[in-house]
């Protein structure tokens, strides 16, 4: 029986954000935008969805009078990502056999 792929993560930009954040402790919004080549508006919406799902923690503060947004994965987000990768592996193994 295959596990259903998490719909929150099974979207290109959200998965890219999660994959980036799994590899680092925390990253600024501008850094994520640069690495994903997404528009600020689009990224902002997806970050909000991940935050609402409890997968990432978003911290907003001011740096040199400019707003700075930092994102990091929550333990729940790490669990969800690991479960997603496990489910992906199952699908791929089934495809090979």
């Amino acid at each position, binding site marked *: 029986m295959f596990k259903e*792929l998490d719909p929150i993560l*099974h*979207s*290109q*930009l*959200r*998965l*890219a954000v999660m*994959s*980036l954040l*799994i*590899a*680092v*402790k*925390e*990253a*600024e919004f*501008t*850094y994520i935008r640069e*690495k*994903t*080549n*997404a528009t600020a508006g*689009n990224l902002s*919406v*997806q970050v909000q969805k991940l935050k609402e799902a409890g997968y990432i923690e978003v911290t907003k503060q001011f*740096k*040199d009078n400019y707003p700075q947004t930092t994102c990091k994965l929550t333990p729940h987000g790490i669990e969800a990502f690991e479960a997603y*990768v496990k489910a*992906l592996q199952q*699908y*791929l193994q089934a*495809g090979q056999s």
Partner: protein
Amino acid sequence: MEEDKKLTEQESLELITEMIHKVKNTYHESGTGAILWGTAVGIAGLTSFAQRHWNFSIGFDIWLIVLVAFIPQIYISIREGKNRKVVSYQEAYMDAVWLVFGLSIFMLTFYLNVISGVTDNFMKQDDSELLLRTLTTGETRHYAPSVPSGYSLLLLLFAMPTLTTGIGQKFKPMIIGGILCYVYFIISCFTSTKYDLLMNGIAGITNWLIPGLILRDRYLKGKRC
């Protein structure tokens, strides 16, 4: 990148690999801190050697520049921290290692400054003192010995890996254990060996036993789930 583009399983896996690869080599150390400390310690060590070897004095303790170097180091650390757009796990651990190293150097300097006076006080309490006699003149004078307290230094060593692991893993029991160990170390600078040993035992409990039991409990709970 599109938000709702339908991905195949293979594409998902490729995207995960690509993003992880993009951030893999994020760690960029500017080297400013290393240059600063290398210069300060290099000058202090070589000047100290030169003063002893050629028998001259510059009139002040050259090692004070190492303490002075803390000020620009704090400024550099804050500035570099502000300019970081991403913090990798490697950087977070390196920060913890150097923070603990700085704290330990500070503690060691404190130890080296107080240990001589403390030993002298203990001897006075035992109604004894050390005298130094010059063989040629026969003149004697008071000598304040500096007996190293091995058990105090052990406490300093105990604190280092525990606090580094605690900060790196964000594991509060080990952060508390590490800080407590520094507190025991300071106290042990003023106590006799008997109490130093007592604090070594207490440090073992607060540093490792309690955090270890908490970890064990979490491990067993995780295994049951």
